[in-house]
């Protein structure tokens, strides 16, 4: 079994000098990385830009949505609280204006008003009428406050001055957090106060029941940062908050709070806070949530966007490398094919040039040979008419004449081969049964082969159809190849030659393989075996034209001749011959067959 060499169509490998091969490998490597970078640039950059753009847009959208939510929360609660306070203030003012003090302090009157206030929802803890001396004139409520004098209390002074006062949360005489709304009215010179204590739980529920995520909270602070409602974090109503207070401002503000401490002095995570001031009382409504939780959706989306981008980039990278490798392989294959075709063209061109040269040389040599031959004949004629007396000279003369004839005939064979090589012979296209035809050639050479210990093994393809070709030229091809196969066993006591045929219906081509178990051909010789005058045989044993002629003939008949060889194992020649000869050959034969009439 011969090892297949990458032999080209014309039988010669596109052998590259090592530095050329290295350069080409470097070019492929450069090409590979250029493709990879270009593809990455053209695919990853847009992907990253689009990903980044979408992510940016989404982040902005989600952030705005979250901030809008916070703003809405603040706005809604501010409105609700303000509405609650305004409603109660208005009711108290209405009662104070529409009722005489004495009417209200009549037994049961204030109780009626109190019950009307708490008719639907309990909104007041107690209700009292207080005189300008600071004592109760009437009281409805559950606390024991009747004997208390409020004239020294902060709220008393305020309401007497302003006519309306809403207090912050304070402990007061009842010692629990509460706040009051107080209004004053005068009946003549008698100024009195209608004071309502807001039901703390009802008020706080307006704020504290709101739940925003796991860390969100809504609370109220007074101007001294004291909680007016219970926050969710570790603090209670009336505690002082660490919230960084700002002066009064209109509208809603959003703040990012960092480096906050809780009631235990521990660090709190960054907070997003939305704040708005109530006008009366000056309470700050705060909606607050951990920043990370508030923007968890955004962070989540960012994380998944990053994962998606990384996966996409990795996929693109892998696919790019895979496709580029495949492309480089295809390019390499194409380059090899192109090299092969170039080599074929080069070989064909070389053979054509040598063919032209050979024809000229052969013709020019034949004339002097013809003269030498005639001179020899003249000498022989002269010797016949004047015999040489000296027998030794006679013998020498005769030997010389024979040697001249021998050498002239040798030169003649060379020139004949040259002329065959240059295709100066006439083709005759006939139908040829290749299987039978090859067997005839084998029969011719089998005796010689057998004497050298070589056996023939034929594997004809019975399905091989007859081909239209030139039998005389094909005979020369097969004779040359089989003779070479026999000669390849020189020095071996035995060997084998396997000849097989095969039909390639798809390409309408007959394939003939001639494989020997001879000494094989070295790679350097393999590149030159189709070159004219190249021979490894001893001087005088081969002209070096046999394979050139074979190549030339097969090519002319539209086929190809290739070779595979491994030193020490053998050589296999493959002929691919079309079922019909090429059109140009048929045309040229048709032209030659046209009778030419003498003018």
């Amino acid at each position, binding site marked *: 079994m011969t090892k297949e060499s990458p032999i080209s169509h014309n039988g010669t490998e596109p052998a590259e000098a090592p530095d050329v091969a290295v350069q080409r490998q470097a070019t492929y490597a450069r090409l590979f990385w250029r493709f990879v970078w270009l593809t990455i640039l053209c695919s990853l950059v847009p992907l990253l830009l689009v990903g980044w753009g979408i992510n940016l847009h989404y982040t902005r959208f989600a952030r705005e949505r979250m901030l809008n939510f916070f703003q809405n929360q603040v706005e809604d609660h501010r409105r609700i609280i303000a509405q609650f306070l305004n409603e109660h203030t208005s009711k108290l003012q209405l009662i104070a204006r529409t009722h005489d003090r004495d009417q209200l302090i009549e037994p049961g009157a204030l109780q009626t008003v109190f019950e009307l206030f708490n008719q639907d929802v309990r909104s007041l803890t107690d209700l009292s009428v207080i005189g300008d001396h600071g004592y109760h004139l009437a009281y409805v409520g559950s606390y024991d406050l009747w004997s208390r004098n409020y004239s020294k209390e902060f709220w008393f002074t305020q309401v007497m001055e302003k006519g309306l006062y809403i207090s912050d949360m304070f402990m007061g005489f009842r010692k629990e957090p509460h706040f009051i709304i107080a209004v004053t009215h005068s009946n003549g010179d008698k100024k009195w106060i209608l004071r309502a204590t807001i039901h703390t739980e009802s008020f706080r529920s307006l704020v504290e029941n709101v739940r925003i995520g796991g860390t969100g909270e809504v609370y109220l602070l007074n101007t001294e940062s004291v909680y007016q409602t219970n926050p969710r974090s570790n603090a209670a109503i009336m505690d002082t908050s660490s919230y960084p207070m700002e002066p009064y401002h209109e509208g809603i503000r959003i703040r990012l709070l960092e480096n906050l401490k809780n009631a235990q002095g521990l660090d709190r995570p960054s907070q997003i806070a939305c704040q708005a001031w109530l006008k009366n009382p000056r309470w700050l409504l705060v909606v607050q949530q951990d920043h990370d939780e508030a923007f968890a959706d955004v962070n989540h989306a960012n994380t998944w966007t990053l994962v998606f981008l990384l996966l996409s980039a990795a996929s693109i990278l892998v696919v790019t490398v895979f496709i580029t490798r495949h492309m480089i392989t295809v390019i390499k294959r194409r380059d090899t094919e192109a090299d092969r075709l170039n080599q074929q063209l080069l070989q064909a061109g070389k053979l054509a040039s040598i063919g032209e040269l050979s024809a*000229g040389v*052969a*013709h020019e040599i*034949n004339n002097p040979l013809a003269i*030498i*031959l005639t001179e020899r004949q*003249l000498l022989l004629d002269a010797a016949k008419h004047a015999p040489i007396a000296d027998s030794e000279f006679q013998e020498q003369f005769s030997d010389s004449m024979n040697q001249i004839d021998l050498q*002239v005939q040798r030169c003649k064979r060379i020139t004949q081969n040259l002329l065959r090589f240059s295709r100066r012979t006439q083709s005759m296209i006939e139908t040829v049964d290749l299987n039978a035809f090859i067997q005839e050639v084998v029969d011719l050479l089998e005796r010689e082969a057998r004497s050298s210990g070589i056996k023939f093994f034929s594997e004809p393809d019975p399905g091989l159809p007859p081909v239209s070709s030139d039998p005389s030229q094909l005979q020369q091809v097969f004779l040359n190849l089989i003779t070479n196969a026999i000669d390849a066993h020189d020095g071996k006591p035995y060997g084998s030659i396997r000849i097989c045929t095969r039909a390639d219906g798809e390409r309408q081509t007959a394939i003939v393989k001639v494989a020997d178990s001879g000494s094989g051909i070295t790679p350097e010789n393999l590149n030159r075996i189709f070159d004219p005058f190249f021979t490894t045989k001893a001087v005088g044993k081969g002209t070096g034209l046999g394979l050139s002629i074979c190549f030339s003939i097969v090519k002319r008949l539209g086929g190809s001749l290739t070779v595979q060889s491994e030193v020490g194992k053998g050589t296999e020649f493959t002929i691919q011959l079309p079922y019909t000869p090429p059109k140009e050959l048929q045309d040229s034969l048709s032209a030659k067959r046209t009778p030419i009439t*003498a*003018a």
Partner: protein
Amino acid sequence: MPGFRVLLVDDEIIFTKNMSKLLKNRGYTVTAVNSGDEAIRELEQNPVDVIVLDLKMPGMDGITTLKEIMKLGLFTETLILTGHGSIDSALEAMKLGAYDYLTKPCEIDELVAKIEAAWAKKTGNL
């Protein structure tokens, strides 16, 4: 049947000289010329039986010479002697009416045999 006239036409002077001697040694009447023009002129004055004509000659080449010979309408046969480089031309010459062709270098006996055959054909046609 030696004795008939042969015209040798070849640009190789030594070849025609040697071949003339050889053919004369074998009993033929030989005239040697070294160009197509000379051959036509010679034939116009002294017709021959067989012409041995080289194809590749300077000036008028063998094919043209043959065409001119055919125009003369002589009772003669022409053998083509070619240096192998122009087999196609030799075949063309045969189509033009040449009897046969020989390739150089050729043995004198081979040439004589062809001349005899040409003579036989000529006489056989009578």
